[in-house]
């Protein structure tokens, strides 16, 4: 799972923080901190579905599953 966590982190840093890792902690809220907006969440969903070959259902699109590195990693652990 640490590999999955690294991939998520890398995706966030490359696509939303432009390489600047400062301020990104494992429990930082992507939405509250303005790291990701509503369209960005959809891109994160796109990435998770492609990278981990999963299907994210509509009811799973909640902040508890998607709004921080910890949340995404925990969600993936349940899914994979």
């Amino acid at each position: 799972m640490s590999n999955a966590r690294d991939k998520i982190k890398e995706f966030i840093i490359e696509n939303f923080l432009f390489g600047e890792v400062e301020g990104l902690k494992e429990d930082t809220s992507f939405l509250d901190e303005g790291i990701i907006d509503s369209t960005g969440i959809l891109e994160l969903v796109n990435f998770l579905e492609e990278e981990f070959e999963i299907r994210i259902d509509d009811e799973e699109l909640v902040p508890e599953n998607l709004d921080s590195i910890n949340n995404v990693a925990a969600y993936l652990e349940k899914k994979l």
Partner: protein
Amino acid sequence: MQIKICSRCILPDTFPGIKFDDNGVCNHCRREEKALAKASGKKSDYIKHLDELIKNKRDSAPVYDVIMAFSGGKDSSYTLKLLKDRYDLRILAYTFDNHFVSPFAFENIKKITDKLKVDLVQFRLPWTAGKEFFSLTAKKDIFSKATMLRASSICTTCIGIVKALVLKTALEMSIPLVAFGWSPGQAPIQSAMMKTNPALNRQTQKAFLKAFPGETKKRITPYMLPDSYYEIYKDRFPYNIHPLAFFDYNEEKIKVELETIGWELPSDTDTNSSNCLLNAYANHCHIIRNGFHPYVWEIANMVRQGVMDRDEGMEKIYTDQNADMVAFAQEKLGL
């Protein structure tokens, strides 16, 4: 200074975080390769899913099956036609008048809704409010850096209001589907058919509002979804659909098809809009502040997906904004 542009899509080296390989191909093109290889199969799956969703939702609401965010531009007009022709839905078209809707677009709105026999409501906010919101976002970028990758501050404000208004109306009128004419480049295909999640919507709206300074935030809040709606209408949250993400998309064919029902290409808008007189100025402000065109992400996606020719994409993005249109909007906003 000469800018470097991806040899496959059209993203420039001024786009934040971009990297190029030895062949001059950007990291976004490389990352999308796997998804693009599966795209055509995925598109036909989405069409089947939409057919199924519509079969389940049709006639389930008292008056309308779908509310359509309708600007009178090419993409939303074509989506409206698609929903009427293919599915014969009971449609409520919803137009947001931001005080910069082209007179051509208003004519198109009337012609298209009459021709397709679709009900239309128009929502116009007072000019003092429009001027305040758009002047503020013309002067500075108030949203996150990530948001600025995909749209200008002005467009983000306008579409934020539109999305909230149509959702409010859908909830109030118990409409199960909300349609947008988003192009295949505007959002990933996964979002093309998705039930609105109340908790996620609440949090993204909170983040949107947080970007505005105190007094302006107070004045924009009434256009957003009130907190009470999350409880009152908790069982009514609709599906969002963006059919153009997975139906065949070809700008020229769309224009030709729309012309058969009376739509005319406006002569008073810029190359990236067929309805808005503020767009050129919004682009101009964004380019000055960020060093890249606010439509470049969307158009690069479309080039990558093969729904737009690369040369056409280059022309849309790397042609200077029309100076008269920029001056018109700047003057109207008193800037």
